[in-house]
């Protein structure tokens, strides 16, 4: 089985936010929830880089470790998914997540934040693949159709790569060798405890 990962080539990202829009549209993500976002660091200064960030589907995921109701599970492709029927919306996964991936629809009283929502790597949830129930809770399931996440597939500069970790790392390595520079695989050290060495 593959070990699916995301890799954002920050030297290619032009902060067009097409990945954000694609994600919201593909999964009918409601207002106020962003499964994916583009963060620009050093905006307007030398060394400016834009990074498209969502759930990185970590190895030894912190969200799963701190969940008080153990609603997370890991697929055979090493995707970190969760069961919204078990989630209580406590927000602990957000405190533990290094990437700010978990999102809450903010319904209910006080801290009652509704069921957590996050990037599914376009792989849906525990419901029947591509069923209406799955679509309503988690959005579309492109992985079950043999497709990669839409954000990466439609990235105009091919900055955002999705796929097997070794393959996308080798693509990134080749790019860096050709052009002579690269700011690294953002989030990989934190998410996978490894970096892409060129």
């Amino acid at each position, binding site marked *: 089985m593959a070990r699916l990962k995301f890799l954002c080539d920050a030297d290619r990202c032009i902060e067009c936010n097409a990945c*954000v829009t694609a994600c919201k549209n593909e999964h009918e993500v409601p207002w106020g929830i962003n499964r994916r976002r583009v*963060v620009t660091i050093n905006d307007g200064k030398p060394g400016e*880089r834009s990074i498209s960030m969502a759930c990185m589907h970590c190895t030894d995921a912190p969200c799963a470790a701190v969940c008080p109701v153990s609603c997370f599970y890991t697929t055979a492709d090493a995707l970190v998914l969760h069961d919204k029927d078990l989630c209580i919306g406590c927000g602990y996964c957000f405190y*533990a997540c290094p990437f700010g991936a978990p999102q809450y629809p903010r319904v209910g009283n006080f801290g009652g934040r509704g069921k957590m929502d996050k990037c599914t790597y376009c792989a849906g949830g525990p419901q029947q693949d591509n069923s209406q129930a799955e679509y309503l809770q988690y959005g579309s399931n492109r992985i079950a159709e043999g497709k990669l996440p839409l954000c990466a597939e439609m990235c105009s500069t091919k900055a955002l790569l999705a796929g097997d970790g070794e393959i996308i790392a080798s693509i990134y390595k080749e790019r860096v060798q050709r052009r002579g*520079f690269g700011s690294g695989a*953002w989030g990989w*050290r934190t998410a996978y405890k490894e970096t892409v060495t060129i």
Partner: protein
Amino acid sequence: MTRAPLALRAGAAFLALALAAAPAAAQQQQNTQGQGTQGPAGGSPEVQSVVPEVGDGRGGMNQQVPESTEKQAPTGGERPAPIPQQAVPTPAAPITAPPPATARGTTSGDEMELQRILRGGVIEGQVSIPNQAAGVLVQPDGRDWREFRNTWLFWIGAAAVLGMIAVLAAVYLVSGPKRIEAGRSGRTIQRFTAIERVNHWMVAVSFVLLGLSGLNITYGASVLRPLIGPEAFTALTYWGQAVHQYLSFPFVLGLVVMLAVWLRDNLPRKVDVAWIKAGGPIAKGHPPAGKFNAAQKALYFFTMGGGVLVAVSGYLLMFPMTVTGVIGTQWAHVVHGLLAMVMIAAILGHIYIGSIGMEGAFEGMSTGRVDYNWAKEHHSLWLEEEAAKARETVAAPRPPPGARVAGAD
């Protein structure tokens, strides 16, 4: 200098020629190659307009000539005298070309992450979505918080709560409940008013339910979930957290009332030092104490202070990301969790003494009246005060207002 083939239409455009000629000429040079490198004409500004307003590349066939009502010089006639060019101020420092992209300030994701992991802090930037908190790209503090929640809080809490239960069980089994040594006298004395008791039980019920629902958040997944299954456990925990949030209000209200009603009686006195020196709860005989002994006073201030901190940190968790960011919320959880565990342990001791641990203590909070002998043994000074008050009342059943009882001085 090569003369650029400019399509000049009007003599008035002559002025523009001076500006337009230079870039146009430079372009020409590139095309023809090998006419020698020449800079812009002398006197022309170093920083030049990139796109000429008039000239090649603009207008062409469909060029629009602006209409003007001003008088125009007739074409073909004598050219107007050239306007003397003013000396263009040269910039103090020459503008240098930016370094190539490869040599610019290197930003490395790996290094920044490693740095933040080692030194703390977050990698932060700008986002174009309304949720500005999403500008935090990587926050490694979550790793420490995870360690706290899954290891430190888990084991400290278990040690505090189970340890206290073990100690209390040992005390009960070894020495048994503390009896009223003189036996019950059959006479009782009022210890707590109705308001004090109602308030106490409001806080007690809230605290027990808050404690149980809180312990469920920390230990439920490893203790209860395997027993009752994921669905039932989620339902239980969902209602538990709702109860936890709603019961915070009666709990805090009760704390405020306790602060108002019991603060005076809990202020430290000299007799408390003597009580501790005599051995406190394990003293031989019964060292004198006021309405509350030193241990009760310590518990009072611990629960009041701890309660306030637990309430404040709890409300920060109840409205996450409003007052503090994600790291502040993590700290709120640290304070809340640790204090709650220690408070649960302390209150377990309180529950033990107030119920099975000491004969005659529970009545004070249920009926409000305690046995005379119980009061004499455990709170002798308080009993004397009460008795003195009663004697005064008896001695002067209806003192006229302002009058002083004989011998009061």
